[in-house]
């Protein structure tokens, strides 16, 4: 693959990747991580499946974000670093626009936040999600359904709680 060919393919994905990273890290780190990501993509260009560049980029971005968080933003728990990489947007960033949703989002497991983000924000199909989180398509679909149900359940509880408060 020539640099020109690489540019032609990956330049088209820059907007999606920018938003993917921006949802997950402070603004000051977005360009840095994006630069790292495309460097990796260039080095691995021959092994990236044609037509699946976007899920491949998301998958690799998760690891870069996870590594970055592990080293520089370790405030949650070291224990989190033992789990597979999770890089979902924080509940607080979502709450900036929707407090109720942010509160429910915060109750989800990191893996649930991750898969819902891939579905809702990135708009990925089950197949694409399965590549990003490295599991089978069926397992990805099941996890997504379960995560959506959990979020919906938490939102319903939030609604009920608000109703009780207002009464």
């Amino acid at each position, binding site marked *: 693959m020539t640099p020109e060919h690489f540019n032609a393919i990956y330049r088209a994905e*820059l907007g999606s990747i920018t938003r993917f990273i921006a949802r997950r890290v402070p603004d000051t780190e977005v360009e840095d991580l994006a*630069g790292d990501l495309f460097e990796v993509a260039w080095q691995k260009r021959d092994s990236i499946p044609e037509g699946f560049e976007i899920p491949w980029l998301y998958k690799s971005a998760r*690891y*870069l974000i996870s590594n970055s968080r592990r*080293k520089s933003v*370790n405030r*949650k728990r070291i224990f989190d670093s033992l789990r597979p990489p999770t890089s979902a947007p924080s509940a607080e960033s979502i709450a900036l626009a929707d407090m109720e949703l942010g509160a429910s989002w915060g109750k989800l497991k990191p893996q649930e936040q991750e898969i819902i983000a891939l579905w809702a924000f990135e708009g990925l199909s089950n*197949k694409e999600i399965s590549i990003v989180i490295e599991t089978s398509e069926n397992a990805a679909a099941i996890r997504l359904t379960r995560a959506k*149900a959990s979020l919906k359940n938490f939102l319903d509880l939030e609604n009920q709680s608000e109703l009780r408060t207002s009464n």
Partner: protein
Amino acid sequence: MNDKFEELRIRIQAADPAQNTSELNQTVVAKAPLTQKAKRLWGFKTTRLGLGGASAVAVTALALTISATLGAQPLIQMAVGGPESLSSSDSKMMAGSDEKIGIWPGYWVQNEYSPSVDLSTEQGSGNVYQLVMVGNPSQRLQQIANIFGIEGSIKEDEWSSKEYPSYSIGTPNRQVSLSWNGTGSWYFSNWAESELRSETREDASEMVEVDFKPTPELLPSEGEVIAKALEIFNETGLPIAESEIRTYRDDWGTGAFASFKVAGQDTAIEWSIGYDSTGELTYASGHSVAAIERGDFKTISAFDSVERIADGRWWGNPANSVWEQYSSDASMLKADSQIQVDPEMSISPEGEEQFVPEIQKLVIERSTATMLMIYDKRGSAWLVPGYLLHNDKGWFDAVISLEEGVIELYKPEEISPENLRIEEEPAQG
């Protein structure tokens, strides 16, 4: 397909924190083929501000060598960004991993800490340990794979890099992976078989709604979980007694944890196993480290350490058992804070809204000496003496107690936006 979650998706999209993000300059892509590999030291661009990558490595190594004999150089050069523990500062706690939350209207609280007169003013000393990875990655990964009965060849992961080597063996749904940096953490995952068991799908390309129900009756007993944990932990290098294993259980799963002990103390390094609702062992994790004692160093008093809370560079990570002890109190504190906070808002001369944080005063009532985990700029993990400083709001902070000079903190200006911009200048040639 009628998706009952479509409304949910629309709502989530409306709350997208990146919806107003500007697209990066396209040179980010164009530069990739022109970039030399491994220009960065441990992924922290700021380490290159004063030193080239190779020079920084050399200086770090030199510091480690000299400190053993002269004691005049810092033992540890802290990673930029530093280890940050969950702080009693509510704004940080609710911020999760996103520093942008500092401007979240209604949730910006600035804490002011003061020590109680009951806090000890006595100085002391404590041992420092460096955590070094044991063995080599291929042998370690093969050893773990054998334990879980996973066959295949070892492959370097696509996201593996010189700074963060990562390897795995097995299939995507059942594999062991190893990250060969820091503490050499490994992770066994076994998702597919268990998760598919209760599935009633109709079409692989289109997921049907499945009503998942937990099956707690399939979970192994606590005794069985502990026995399995003991077996796996011991085989993977964590010699531990049954009484030191902690368990959790709900309808959706069960599991066990145990802490890597150093000098008889729990540390932030943990081994774990977990079962899903079908009773299948779905994950296990651990590390590949040994603790090397690097000497006894003087520590400041608990009273004096209070002022370090406000400087995140002094934060460290305590053992997980500490977090668990405080977890319920934490949620209460969050709830209280959400009600109490009432920031003022003003208009700057430029017409921009500015939020004035609410000041919350906290008194540190007591302290507990402990061991904290931190990372240095080379990616190595360390265990250093520290204090848990318990405040009158029912939460705590964990700060390093080593006296000045043992650790070289990163400079605050290293992460300033001005310096970051310097890094973004295009490379010559």
